[in-house]
């Protein structure tokens, strides 16, 4: 039963990893930008959640209502003021600039919040669980997070393929010049894409901060999980990203079940194996 439990917990954890990954995947898909600061932005969102939660005395899950729009705004401004200037034929400048941004965010958070690990408490819901047949207990909070992750991925999928924003994202991704001819200002379109990415980051960051403790240096690790989920699932496929997150979460939990020290290692091994067997990921992009 421990094994079944490990797998179920792994699936639920995979939802969080998919959230880490979704924003990364969206940005790469729309503007071919690899955002090295993505993990640090997740941690920034967690700290913002902490501040909002302590200042207003509310449940951290409710702080999403404030942190998500704030992160969206930060994303839009960041894109318009900084990142758009780095985009061009050369892929190196955006890598360097987002790497610099990563360093700046980590040090800024260190200055403001110190290196102490923090955690947000969501109250009674953290210990609530439903009993499943066979003596398994399913935590309500992990379940809630997983369902939210699935809904968010579904919403992103809808936005990307069914809405006017998504049409603009896809058109700009296809051909920036011709998209401009259609009256789309690509700087604005990219700003919207980054805003959307960071709204997802806000949810991911707060879920992270409720689930585990975090500190200013936690970002790069989250970035790696996000990357791995994206690559496992196949670039540009959001449902694939969810599958990638789940595979990563399950592998980690199976590893931890064998030996508590093997949790991260098992995830990385699963990633490498899949990369070796299917270099384009399990579900490479299928449009529609």
């Amino acid at each position: 039963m421990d094994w079944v439990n490990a797998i179920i917990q792994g699936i639920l954890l995979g939802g969080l990893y998919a959230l880490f990954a979704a924003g990364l995947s969206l940005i790469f898909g729309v503007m071919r930008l690899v955002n090295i600061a993505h993990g640090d932005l997740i941690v920034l969102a967690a700290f913002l959640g902490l501040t909002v939660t302590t200042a207003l005395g509310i449940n951290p899950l409710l702080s999403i209502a404030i942190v998500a729009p704030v992160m969206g705004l930060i994303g839009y401004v960041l894109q318009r003021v900084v990142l758009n200037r780095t985009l061009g034929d050369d892929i190196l400048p955006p890598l360097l600039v987002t790497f610099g941004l990563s360093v700046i965010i980590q040090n800024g958070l260190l200055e403001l919040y110190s290196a102490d690990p923090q955690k947000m408490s969501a109250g009674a819901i953290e210990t609530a669980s439903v009993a499943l047949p066979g003596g398994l207990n399913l935590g309500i909070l992990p379940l809630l997070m997983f369902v939210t992750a699935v809904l968010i991925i579904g919403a992103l999928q809808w936005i990307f393929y069914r809405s006017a924003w998504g049409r603009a994202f896809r058109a700009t991704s296809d051909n920036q010049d011709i998209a401009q001819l259609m009256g789309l200002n690509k700087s604005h379109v990219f700003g919207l894409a980054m805003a959307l990415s960071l709204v997802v980051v806000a949810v991911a960051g707060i879920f992270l901060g409720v689930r585990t403790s975090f500190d200013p240096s936690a970002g790069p690790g989250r970035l790696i999980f996000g990357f791995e989920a994206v690559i496992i699932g196949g670039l540009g496929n959001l449902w694939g990203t969810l599958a990638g997150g789940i595979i990563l979460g399950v592998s980690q939990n199976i590893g931890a079940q064998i030996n508590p020290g093997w949790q991260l290692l098992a995830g990385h091994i699963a990633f490498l194996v899949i990369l070796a067997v299917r270099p384009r990921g399990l579900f490479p992009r299928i449009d529609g």
Partner: protein
Amino acid sequence: MGSKPVPEAVLEIDGLDSFYGDFQALFGVSMRVERGEVVAVIGANGAGKSTLMRSVTGLLTNRPEMVRFGTAQIGALRADQIAHMGIAMVPEGRQLFPSLSVEENLIIGGQAGRPGEWTLDAVYSLFPVLKERRHQASTSLSGGQQQMVAIGRALMSNPELLLFDEISLGLAPIIIKTIYEALPDVIGTGMSAVLVEQDITRAVDISDRVYCLQEGRVSLEGKSGEVSREEISKAYFGV
């Protein structure tokens, strides 16, 4: 501003020099398109025809006064700003969005939100075959059908000025004929048009006036009915 007491110009290009980095592609090009007029631009490969189109649509940035649209100086505006003002282009090689369906390509053409007679239904009645295929990927269409989408996409913004860059390129003669037969319905509605074409006969037939470019300079300018074949050959090939 407008000191010339001549007919109203929709587009006025004045001493346009265009560059790709250090490479100069256009040298002091001047051109005028009057309201409701169809102007043909001919010239050999590499003469600078597409560069001229890119400069007018804002894909290449120039000095503000080098390109005027009505009374506005648009030479330094961004392409999306110019699109909103009412210039649309059917680009060379069609350049549909592969990730978008046929209908989405048309809808995004109307993105600028300019009101007018061109709607999805109007485009579908001009090119009925597109309606049957509207949910297909744009890449699944034949070349001629793709060209219809590209034309429809440009019309959807209800432009005042429509630029066509070699719409017959790579299409079978019968398809070219179909598309050219549809053109009067398109530009007969008071729209002004600039038509880039390598096929000189077609260009002269459909246009009111013709410009010939040679190595980035205007080598001939005249009323389409008045320029002779010899003049055109000379301006075209520089012999």
